[in-house]
């Protein structure tokens, strides 16, 4: 293969960035890029410019009903609506003959398994600086700083809806929160009654991560979120103030829960069974299970080519 010089590669940079270079020239240029970070930088900067150029295309109104067609395409029958919505633990568990004393906890685990179904996506570490997410608390959104000691290392957002979900943005590149730059953290929700429920794990990369999951618990009783190390040490926590945002959402959330009951029982047979079968696994296996299911769910109605 011909060895390209930097000068030759720079000449091909624009076509490479445009994605219109073909055949031998492309192969030679890519071979050079793999060895030359400087040319790589040039090409990726130019690729960004091409992207910005494409973004200048004027907007246009899609045909009526477009939004609904998209929603239908991503929510196959049987998974419609709030399939993740946890039923009240104490309402569901006794039907299965689980001793009342254990019901609450088991219910939470069941709900946790269900919630994690298709819900967890350990986002690639991204380093969204907390300040760049400008979300003001509203009736639907609760925001809290994530504190490691008295050091703010990110933010936690709870979107109280049906299902509700939590979004964590950690950015502690300087390591001031002593989390460890590439630590694996477990996210636990804490309730006002002191009980906790584990949502899943994610890893920091260079002190950063964005991560989201559905919350299996009623956000009205939510107190906060904790990030713990593999050894169970609490490294950072967030506290949501119930008197402000949460009380506003209480009636809303209640309404949604009521709305959802019908649908929940529709879907219980299809996915409820699955998650119950897995409730004897440890917490960690929930995450794995949920991923398997998540990909199954997404693949099962994957109409177009995956390969592109």
């Amino acid at each position, binding site marked *: 293969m011909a060895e390209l010089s930097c000068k030759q590669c720079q000449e091909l940079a*624009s*076509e490479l*960035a*445009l*994605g*219109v*270079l073909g055949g031998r020239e492309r192969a030679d240029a890519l071979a050079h890029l793999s060895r030359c970070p400087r040319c790589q930088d040039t090409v990726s*900067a*130019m690729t*960004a*410019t091409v*992207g*910005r*150029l*494409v*973004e*200048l*295309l*004027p*907007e*246009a*109104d*899609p*045909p009526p009903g*477009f*939004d609904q067609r*998209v*929603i239908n*395409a*991503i*929510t196959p029958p049987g998974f419609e*609506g*709030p399939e993740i919505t946890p039923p009240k633990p104490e309402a569901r568990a006794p039907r299965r003959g689980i001793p009342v004393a254990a019901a609450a906890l088991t219910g939470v685990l069941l709900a946790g398994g269900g919630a994690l179904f*298709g*819900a967890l*996506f*350990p*986002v690639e570490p*991204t*380093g*969204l600086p907390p300040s*760049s997410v*400008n*979300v*003001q608390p*509203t009736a639907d*959104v609760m925001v809290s700083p994530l504190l490691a000691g008295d050091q703010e290392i990110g933010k936690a*957002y709870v*979107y109280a*809806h*049906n299902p509700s*979900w939590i*979004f964590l943005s950690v950015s502690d590149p300087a390591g001031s929160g002593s989390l460890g730059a590439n630590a694996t953290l477990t996210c636990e929700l804490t309730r006002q009654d002191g009980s906790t429920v584990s949502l899943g794990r994610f890893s920091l990369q260079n002190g950063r991560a*964005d991560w*989201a999951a559905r919350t299996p618990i009623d956000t009205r009783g939510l107190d906060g979120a904790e990030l713990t190390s593999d050894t169970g040490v609490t490294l950072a926590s967030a506290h949501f103030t119930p008197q402000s945002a949460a009380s506003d959402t209480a009636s809303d959330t209640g309404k949604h829960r009521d709305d959802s009951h019908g649908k929940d029982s529709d879907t219980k047979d299809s996915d409820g069974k699955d998650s119950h079968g897995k409730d004897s696994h440890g917490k960690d296996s929930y995450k794995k299970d949920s991923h398997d299911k998540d990909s199954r769910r*997404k693949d099962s109605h*994957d*109409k*177009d080519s995956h390969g*592109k």
Partner: protein
Amino acid sequence: MGLSDDMLLAGFGAGDPTAALAFVHRFQRTAFGVALGVIGDAGLAEDVAQQAFERAWRHSERFDPRLGSVRGWLVSIVHNLAVDAARVRRPHPIEKQDLDSMIAAMAESPEHHALAGEISAELRQALASLPEEQARAAVFTAVHGMTARELAEQEAIPLGTAKSRIRAALAKLHETVATSRGAHG
């Protein structure tokens, strides 16, 4: 609802029905506009825009805010799909007048665009001030995904000329963005 693009994408990816609808509403005009601009046929553009949302939903976890905006990420998904679809279906070469009106639309004042902002405004200006043949070279390749060889055929010019027009156009546009970014942080 006050949710940022990033959060809305997270909710969309997590399958939250409300977030999904809000996400589609926020970006459907952009997605459809890009598809229509590349393809020119409303029916096919709609299919492509829909596919793009499906892909964004499947791969929402791949979005990396360090590499750009949610809008930019979605636009690149739509654009890739649209270029591929147009390659298969496009019956005729792109008319010069279509190309010219596309350039005019891209360079026109920002009120018709969701994408305001300093850099975009300057990029529009830079596109408008390129020599016509260079602006065509830029849009023909960047928007329509055509190669230098196809540009040479379309414009009836030697391949070498086509390549240098593409290079010159991109260099000027890139310089604008780089300078603007430097100046505005």
